[in-house]
């Protein structure tokens, strides 16, 4: 028998009996950040490949979502801070070793650029609401000329943003479920997949929908592979990692993880997308919405389950 008790009656809010410092805003932010990273990545990539006329949803319509997602995500992050008035301290220093510092700086650049990106498409997006000031029109045409430059800025930054949502968690070696290097690529791929799903939802052309269905199918298969990879790594890991994995396999998060993330969020939409590409009549919104919902639940599962896993007690 081995039993450990804290006899001095420690019962600190959000720490005991298990850690619960990061609540729903963090999960929501990780989802929105990944989504924005995916959308901006595709917008930038298609612009760089000079295919922006053929895929208007990817560069134009869906890119309205990214500044909204980033703004809501940032508000969620801010809401979860407990010493809010000192948030500006993030920007008085650069901490190379801290993923959160990386994230804060990347967000500081990528958020305004995502707004500028939408502004550069303003007259095409909102033809009824004309820009009535001369300097705004000038600014818009200036942005239009520099769209390629913005794309080159956004492409690497969106990858960093997507990876960062995973690295943020994997940097904590105290939480065995998070502490695996695959989480960075896994969250990036998941973010790109939710981005592709949003483009499918907002696209009106069959050609574009099919291209992004194909891309999304590839990403989902990749994501499933990475999830298997994560589990194999955990199973080959130390005792604490084995215990962490048991939360997902046969533990309290099994239904959420396998039922809602793996099956409903990845496998079912992948099959539906495959059938749709083969010519079956399936509304594309169904797999796209499932992907988005699965991505959101995936973040909740990882954030909540990860905080339960620990070394001591």
């Amino acid at each position: 028998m081995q039993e450990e008790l804290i006899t001095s009656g420690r019962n600190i809010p959000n720490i005991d009996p298990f850690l619960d410092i990061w609540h729903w805003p963090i999960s929501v932010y990780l989802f929105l950040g990944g989504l924005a990273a995916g959308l901006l990545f595709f917008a930038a990539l298609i612009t760089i490949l000079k295919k922006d006329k053929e895929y208007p949803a990817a560069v134009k319509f869906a890119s309205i979502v990214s500044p909204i997602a980033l703004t809501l995500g940032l508000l969620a992050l801010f809401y979860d801070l407990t010493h809010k008035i000192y948030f500006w301290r993030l920007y008085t220093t650069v901490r190379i070793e801290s993923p959160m510092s990386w994230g804060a700086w990347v967000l500081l650049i990528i958020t305004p650029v995502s707004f500028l990106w939408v502004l550069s498409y303003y007259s095409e997006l909102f033809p009824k609401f004309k820009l009535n000031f001369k300097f705004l029109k000038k600014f818009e045409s200036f942005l239009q000329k520099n769209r390629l430059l913005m794309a080159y800025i956004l492409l690497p930054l969106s990858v960093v943003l997507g990876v960062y949502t995973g690295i943020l968690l994997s940097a904590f070696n105290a939480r065995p479920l998070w502490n695996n290097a695959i989480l960075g690529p896994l969250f990036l791929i998941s973010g790109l997949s939710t981005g592709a799903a949003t483009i499918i939802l907002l696209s009106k052309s069959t050609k574009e929908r099919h291209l992004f269905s194909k891309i999304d199918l590839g990403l989902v298969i990749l994501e499933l592979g990475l999830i298997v990879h994560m589990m194999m790594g955990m199973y080959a890991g130390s005792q604490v990692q084995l215990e962490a994995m048991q939360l997902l396999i046969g533990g309290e998060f099994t239904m959420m993880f396998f039922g809602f993330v793996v099956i409903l969020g990845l496998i079912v939409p992948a099959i539906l997308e495959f059938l749709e590409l083969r010519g079956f009549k399936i509304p594309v919104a169904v797999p796209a919405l499932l992907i988005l919902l699965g991505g959101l639940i995936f973040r909740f599962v990882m954030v909540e389950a990860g905080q339960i896993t620990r070394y001591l007690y």
Partner: protein
Amino acid sequence: MRYAMVIDTLKCVGCSDCVVACQTENDVPIGYCRDWVTENVSGSYPSIELELKSERCNHCENAPCVRCCPTGASHQLNNGIVLVTADECIGCGACIESCPYDARYQHPDGYVDKCTFCHHRLEKGQLPACVAVCPTKCMYFGDLDNQNSEVSKLLKNRKWKTLAPEAGTKPKVYYLI
């Protein structure tokens, strides 16, 4: 200079005096604590072993909380003590997530708080409050870099362990066993 704490689990009776002393000395808000006592029972009757430990921040040499802090509020002094500057802390919780010992908490005022090895008392030449009040004198405090300090000698002559060494943090609170 490398401060460390050595706690003799064979002498500790688990009275929690260290906990109360810390709460009083450091004005720890009610319901919170910077140190705590654990009771570990192992074996099966009749060969049962009981181990009592007073636990706190380990002031790790490789401190993950310092590494993860996005603002530099969590920092390490030259003498090894890990501190939090309250007015640089944004309360993001990264350090709490990164601590394998769950030694940190969010103060009701918002910033993150933890054991300081009673840094303010050390400056006056006093021992940390928990060490000073221990009725069984099972806690020792001193400089590991000094070969002749009490803590160095104890670690040379006695069997010891640290908590979760597999986390790779190189903790500086040692338990004599």
